[in-house]
């Protein structure tokens, strides 16, 4: 188990960046850049092991209780 101090939060892990050079609507772009659900409960988040191996990981965490349910490597997909 590693200390939380070594990690840095990186936002919602379920957001997918639109592909480069793809023509997309303002709405799609705004959804990607700005629009986030402020969920209470289980939430897939990105964290980077900043003061460690520097890997970005996906963490399923309860935003209310901080309980951690699941973690995935950067290249693993969230299956729901």
């Amino acid at each position, binding site marked *: *188990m590693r200390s939380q101090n070594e990690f*840095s939060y*990186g936002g919602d892990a379920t957001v997918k*960046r*639109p592909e*480069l*050079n793809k023509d*997309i609507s303002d709405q799609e*772009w705004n959804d*990607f*850049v*700005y629009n986030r659900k402020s969920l209470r409960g289980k939430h897939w988040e*990105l964290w*980077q092991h*900043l003061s460690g191996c*520097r*890997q*970005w990981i996906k963490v399923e965490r309860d935003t209310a*209780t*901080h*309980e*951690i349910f699941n973690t995935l490597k*950067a*290249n693993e997909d969230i299956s729901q």
Partner: protein
Amino acid sequence: MTQSFRLENVGLINRNKKISFKFNGKKYYGYEGDTLASALIANGVHLIGRSFKYHRPRGFFGAGVDEPYAIVQLYRNGETEPNIKATEQELFDGLVATSVNCWPSVKFDIGAINNFLKIFLPAGFYYKTFMWPKSFWYKVYEPFIRKAAGLGVASIKHDKERYEHKYEYCDLLIAGSGPSGLASAYAAAKNGARVILAEEKSRFGGTLLTSDVNIGNKSGKEWAEGIIAELTEMPNVTIKNRSQVFGYYDHNMLVMSERISDHLPKTKKFHPKQRLWYIRAKEVLISAGSIERPIVFGNNDTPGVMLSSAAKEYLKVYGVLVGKKPLIFTNNDSGYETAIEFKKNGIDPIILDTRENPQSEIVDDAKELGINIKFSYVVVAAQGYKKVKSADIAKISVNKEELGEIENIKCDCICVSGFWTPTIHLASQSGNKTKFNENIDAFVPGKSKQNETTLGAANGVYTLDETLKSSFETAHELSKKITNNDNKISFPNVIEKKSTTHDKFWCVPLPKGKNYKRFLDFQNDVAVSDIEIALKEGYRSIEHVKRYTTLGMATDQGKTSNLNGLQLVSKIENKVVPAVGHTTFRPPYSPVSIGAIVGREVGKHSKPTRKSPMHNWHEQNNAVFVDAGVWLRPRYYKIGDENLFEASKREAKNVRTNVGVCDVTTLGKIDIKGPDAGELLNRVYTNAWLKLPVGKARYGVMLREDGIVMDDGTTTRISENHYHMTTTTAQAANVLSHLEYYLQLVWPELNVNVVSTTEQWAGAAIAGPKSRDLLQKLFPSCDVSKEGLPFMGYMEGDLFGVKARIFRISFSGELAYEVNVESDNGNFMWEKIIEVGQAFKIQPYGTEALSTLRIEMGHVAGSELDGRTIPYDNSLEGLVSKKKDFIGKRSLTKEAFTAEDRQKVVGVVPLDKKTSIPEGSHLVKDSNAPLPNPKLGFISASCWSVEYDNPFSLAILKDGKNMIGKKLFVMSPLKNKVIPVEIVSSHYVDPKGERVRS
């Protein structure tokens, strides 16, 4: 003064060691083992402070952590500390304490006038009264409230004490060393578990120290001492007194504060004052006990009214009588224990029992001892101002609503017992949903959320036999699960007095025609009438009632007030208590000093200090340093009596006329390798990167996805698949994370590796018209001519035997180069540059001169790239590719970002060419316009132009493109300055950029 309330031969104090101390300037004596509270009571002192709101006299209410009144300002070894509970502070020789919350003195307190004006200070009085008129807030109300309502004075001096943090792991953490804590520690330890046992007080044993029980043919106290002695010898057990487990956090992590030196006159050498423990426990046993709750009656805040259990503790632990004519007011059997202790010591108490005819062993004992007991009697009101002098008492009807005739009896203290409230704070902090237990009229822990188990009185179990049994068994089971051992210890025989049920009575009705204040929250002065008003005004949720009335919001967090408050709300609302619910328990359980929380991370220990390899040289050459992130950078090199302004001007001027050298080691450096490195750069930077030849550098700007500039810097192609990126000092770490984010999560198909090399390279920027001549001398075998090393060129060279990288890049706007060598050779490089540079009048320059040079050249930096500007704002739109896609490009089409009058960086010169312009000032059209004066822009950076010898600033200005030549005003309300200025191009010096290319 004699300790006239001290008993002979009773108590656990050390009578061989007399201790002198001062309270409010007067000298007293106590004994080693006293608390400040017990020593004051021994001396007959009961007036200790004034209440928060009405400034009513305050005495002692409890004997420990639950104390709502006795808060003092403590003076110890030249330091002072506020918010100290006299009931917790152990006495040491030379202790000095004063009252808080009273002005000018505790005996004559001017704020007490509030007591007579109380009709004007009802619930929510801050919200209502002091809101109007608005201008009165700052000038009249606020200072008055501050003066009148303080809980002490924080020291303004640097705290010289040392505080430490400790990280610990264990199988079982046991919070509280009463009967259940000792039993479970013993059982778990004997079963091989790693145990930490924490006790908040100085003495282990909890209620065993004061109760009249027998365990295994020993008194409770002797049994406790035996267990502690055995635990102390066990290698798998850590026992800590003066240690409060105050917070239960996620993943079974608990935090405990250990007061190591607070009980000593002075912290021993190399010892910390306090230590904060972060403990990860596999299992947590909460044996925090219970706190007696008061019964509410008129003037129940008068000094001398206190908890019956506290009176018993003062007597049995400290040998102190809280009074010589005690009145015991109880609704349960506990009050009898206190009465019997008084009687045994030659004091005749009177018991008022709200119950009609209780039948139990202890009631019979009291009768047998000849104690005067009045059944179905209540205290209607305490009489006396600074101390209880008598009590109005009356018979109460069976339905508890009608009072009989009021009688007045003399007494000097009223010991109250309204039954017991389990200490459920830690369980609740863990996430345990508490449940209401009808039998004890209080909340107890429900289903465990984390690995926590609550035992004994904290779980609402009030018999010793059951407490010990459940503790032994639980600890055995839990430790067995962890250690796989199965050593069971034999259960001792327990003798205790069986008690009968308590009376659910908690509040004495007001007699006809009387309007006594009946307090619920003693620290925040919240009375029954305040809650009634709040409910009348429509407050329903207990969380709202709490905040509006401040019930339970004081530093004692309502340890003695919460349940009675809930009882009242539920009674008025005609609900049951569990339907009202309790407010949230949050850590810390009791106040923790800021010092303990901060630990060793103070001053220079708060973050690492990074120094360049040339740091010693800078130091030896009178550099004055400035913090640049975690780095220390030379701000200027002082010669003689120069100040910052003079030195930086001299250094900048020398760069413009001769040559200067600046330590640029702190710039972020990222090594980028891989066949797709060019593609990554092309996606990260706004300009095109695919055609950059080997041996060339390029300036680039990178954006966030929202179109805002994130960072800028140059990247050099070292070889086919190898690039060297530089970032600003401040953004180095963020840029690396940013690249890693895209490489790992967004474009994992790119075959690229990135790694920080900031610390691997030492850098020196050599700038000025003579820099090429100097460089030629440093690298005689390299062709550094205009053609051999053109602007944005790169080559590798040999610096007197040391391998070096040479970049022709410029931040100062002059002909300039940057030389990098491996860090270990940094100082060698620097000394060589200085040595060889003497012939060219070289001078080192610091960050201040560096700023001057870049500002007058109009080069944007951190103060313009401030997280609010896009490339256009910084006149960097020429670097934005129209052809390719990159991070953040889509955002640049946003309406606000393409507006015709979009802000843009401009230059600002004062009309008088003399007045310096403060950074952060606003630009306005009309300095006399009525407020709020429309703001057109702000000054981002200011300098004294060495080229033109007048002040010059950069500003981000609305419609900056069309403002060149216009006259505006700079306003700085902070510095009370209005300066007429002219807007000019941001490229104030060498606008065509001829020098860098020369």
